[in-house]
Each structure stands twice: as C-alpha cells, then as structure tokens.
C-alpha cells in the first residue's frame, strides 16, 4: 500500500491533537475512499463511453433547443 504524508492545516491542528496516529490514519483513509470513489466511478464509466464529439454536439443542440423552448413558454413576455 502506498503511504502518503501530508501537513495538517494550522486551523485543524487542535482538532487532531487528541487523536492518536492510528485513529487519524483510519479517519483519513475513510475520507479519501469516500471522496475518491465517486471520481473513480465516473472515470470508469466515461472510459467505456462510445460517444463521439459529433454525436455530443448534435445531442447538446437538441437539449439546449428544448431547454430554451421551455423557458420561452414559461416566460412568454420576457
């Protein structure tokens, strides 16, 4: 397992003072997994996508047109 060293922000030093290093390590491990799991999942999904730039442009134009129409109907006077 890779080991990462980092500096605690000064304003948080007192919060972590009462924790031992093992507790701190477990806490940071959990936070890292929680934070990165969403990123990793999104990256994995996108890596499977067959979407091309041309398809994306066409689809985005359709969605934007539909969105603009919706606002135009909601606010006909504006």
């Amino acid at each position: 397992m890779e080991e990462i060293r980092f500096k605690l922000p000064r304003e948080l030093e007192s919060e972590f003072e009462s924790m031992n290093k093992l507790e701190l390590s477990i806490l940071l491990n959990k936070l890292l997994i929680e934070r990165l799991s969403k990123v990793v999942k999104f990256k994995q999904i996108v890596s499977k996508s067959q979407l091309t730039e041309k398809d994306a442009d066409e689809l985005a134009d359709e969605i934007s047109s539909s969105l603009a129409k919706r606002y135009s109907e909601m606010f006909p006077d504006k």
Partner: protein
Amino acid sequence: MPNKFVVDANVVISSLIMHGVLSSVFLSNNILKKFEFIAPEFLLEEVKKHKARILKITKLSEQEFEDAYEFLLSEITFIRAEEFSEFLSKARHLAPHEKDVPYVALSVAFNCPIFSGDKGLIKSKLNVVSPRKLLDMLSNS
C-alpha cells in the same frame, strides 16, 4: 480570474466522451473545488428526457448513465428560473442562437462567463471559456 461559470448542455453531454477534456475538468474540479459551475434548473431534466438516445449512442448501461448523472448533478448548482428570468429578454439580443438564450441570461444575471465547447458560442462576442482553457486554468492553480 472568475470562479463561477455557466455550463451548457454541450459541456454536460461532452463530459461523457472517452478521453475528453471535459471529464478531466469535472474530475479535477471535484478534487480542487476551484470553480463553481451553475446551470439553468431544468438542464439535467432535459438531459434525462434524452436518456434513451444517450444510452444508445454512448453504449452505457442504464445504471452507468444514472451514476454519471448523479456525479454531474453533484458538480453543478442549478439556478431557479426566477433568479435570471428578468435577463431573458436581454439575452435574446445577445445570444448567437435561440438555443443559447437561457445560458446567456444566467451569465448576465450572475456576471460570469459561459463554459462551453459550442463553436457558435465560442465564436460569439460573449465571454465564453472553452474546455481546454478551463482545464489549463485548473492545472495552473
């Protein structure tokens, strides 16, 4: 340097392109939290209306689409129509195309640039930041 950007459908959809710049922008910003992305409130609802076609084109499963959708949802703040509707009229004169009106109105209301890869918007005289430029801005932070 601005820290708030209006995102359009082009950015949201193109973030699903494999090895694309846009997924890198959202992924980097998720970690760095440097920029705030805002969009008209119904944008992702409109994206969802096109779900069947997106699934067909991307070849992603329904669950994968839902997970990607959730991720994007968490990266964008959606702005209620009431907060920018008074600028729709002005936006109609400024936008290069009718489809861009909600984004331009939001950009005027919040006085921030539009983040888009749409060629028409990029060529316009509006304050538009391309995906490549935004990624550079993130990388240089």
